[in-house]
């Protein structure tokens, strides 16, 4: 809030109204519906429904397929977050070091930000196509019996690789701007104190990047949870046998394909709680970082 403000009147309500109306109709109402439906059991025709308390939760969350998806989501988001962050950090540090060609490197490393996840997914899908995909042939040629249609490890490898590829550029942009925000004097002082560039990085630069890294971790986990939907849907679609189902993909599958409204809503609510926890973590951290 500002110290100086306009007087109390009806005007602010007019300004804020468009956003609030949209939120109520397209956000609060559907979210409330999701919570409500998660307590209902519908018959096969959707004609009658009955209030069943937490049965949908018990039925879906404790089911083997949900636990499998939860396990995969955990491994998947950890791998995607860790790998894309490390790769981006390495590239950002190197791009920050060079003088010659710095802007060319910067541009060519960040432009993939603009590519949609499903587009990246389809490209990857074709690269791993058994008929024409060179990556598919390459992996088999070097003695890896690679088949992402049948082997769950290989399928996981494909979705992790594409998801990491898609996410490196965002992380790179943030790391680079974080590195450029470190004052010159700090760098110069550290150069005098410590000759080894590797040690200098881990003792000076990396701790200074901690806020950026932490923030990016939250962004990346959210990405791995939600935005990778497009990648999964254009590559493995959960195959083989649900081994690459993420939780979001399963909500969609059960709700639209399987028409299990109650179960799908219960899964949605669980996901909401997970995002809520993530956001609380993020905002506690941001409060510490930003001072007005």
């Amino acid at each position, binding site marked *: 809030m500002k110290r100086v403000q306009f007087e109390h009147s009806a005007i602010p*309500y007019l300004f804020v109204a468009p956003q609030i109306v949209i939120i109520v109709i*397209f956000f609060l109402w559907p979210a409330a519906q999701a919570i409500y439906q998660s307590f209902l059991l519908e018959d096969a025709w959707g004609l009658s429904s009955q209030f069943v308390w937490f049965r949908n939760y018990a039925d879906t969350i404790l089911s083997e397929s949900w636990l499998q998806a939860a396990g995969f989501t955990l491994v998947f988001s950890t791998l995607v977050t860790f790998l894309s962050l490390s790769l981006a950090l390495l590239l950002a540090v190197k791009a920050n070091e060079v003088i010659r060609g710095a802007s060319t490197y910067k541009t060519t490393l960040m432009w993939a930000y603009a590519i949609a996840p499903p587009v990246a997914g389809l490209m990857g899908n074709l690269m791993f196509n058994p008929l*024409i995909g060179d990556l598919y042939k390459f992996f088999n040629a070097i003695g890896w019996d690679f088949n992402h249609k049948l082997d769950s490890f290989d399928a996981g490898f494909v979705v992790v690789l594409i998801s990491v590829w898609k996410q*490196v550029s965002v992380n790179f942009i943030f790391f680079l701007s974080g590195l450029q925000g470190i004052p010159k004097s700090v760098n110069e002082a550290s150069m005098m104190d410590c000759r080894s560039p590797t040690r200098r990085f881990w003792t000076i630069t990396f701790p200074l990047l901690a806020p950026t890294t932490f923030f990016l971790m939250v962004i990346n986990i959210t990405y791995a949870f939600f935005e990778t*939907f497009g990648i999964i849907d254009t590559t493995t679609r959960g195959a083989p046998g649900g081994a690459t189902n993420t939780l979001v993909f399963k909500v969609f599958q059960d709700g639209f394909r399987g028409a299990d409204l109650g179960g799908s809503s219960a899964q949605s609510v669980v996901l909401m709680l997970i995002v809520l926890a993530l956001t609380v973590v993020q905002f506690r951290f941001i409060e510490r970082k930003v001072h007005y």
Partner: protein
Amino acid sequence: MRNWNWRLISTHAILIVGVLFMSLPVWVAFATSTHSAEHILRNGLQIWPGGDFLSTYNEVLFVEGGVMKAVLGTTMLKNSLILGIGFAIGKVVISMLAAYAIVYFRFRLALPLFWIIFMTLLLPLEVRIIPSYEVVSGLGLLDTHVGLIVPLIASATGTFFFRQFFLSVPDELLEAARLDGATPWGFFIDILVPLSKTMIAAILIIMFVVGWNQYLWPLIMTTKEENYTLVIGIKQIYQILAEGGELPQYQKAFALTILATLPPVLVVLVFQNWFVKGLVESEK
């Protein structure tokens, strides 16, 4: 001195490998899209462009039945543009107005409304996708631009960005404007909007890319082929490929991925500085 040189060489080597890793897949997709279907099926992916660029892209963009049953590539391009631009403008206008009210006015419901807006950050569209679909279909908005764009605008990312920016605007501006007898609307239009020009541009660019790249929502929202965006068209062509047929049209699949990639990439490259500034600032 010698040590330092080796270090420089390894730095460039790492960066070049990184650039290849990021760019090669897209280049291969482009090069392959310029070859004929037979050639691709026989020889796999291509690293050098072939001679079928014009015929393939012409067919994908302008020939009926080229990629989909009825819809042309240009129609999908148009739909994608409407989604990207409509989303970006809608988001900027609505979030600027809301942020203005929250920052510059003292009103009774300010805090609860702020929290309602804040809550939207907690629930991505993906987790409330089915009830959202039901609401939109209940309102008869399936297959319309309004039904496609407006629900996507509901989240508050833009509002928070503008709130942050308005808070950094010096208080003296408003004091001076009020001494000159400025109305709330006048202050907004004549002072705040011109002041936010760079920020508005940056947010427009980011939101255009975000809107263009929407996938799940347009996928369930559009039932008619003529409303497909390029990103959704990709999904369809993937299904066509998966179903097989006599000669898979790989070159068209690749051409479509290139077409879906090109506009947002161009926007990001042309407005690179604004885009980076907006992205880094907005996430603070």
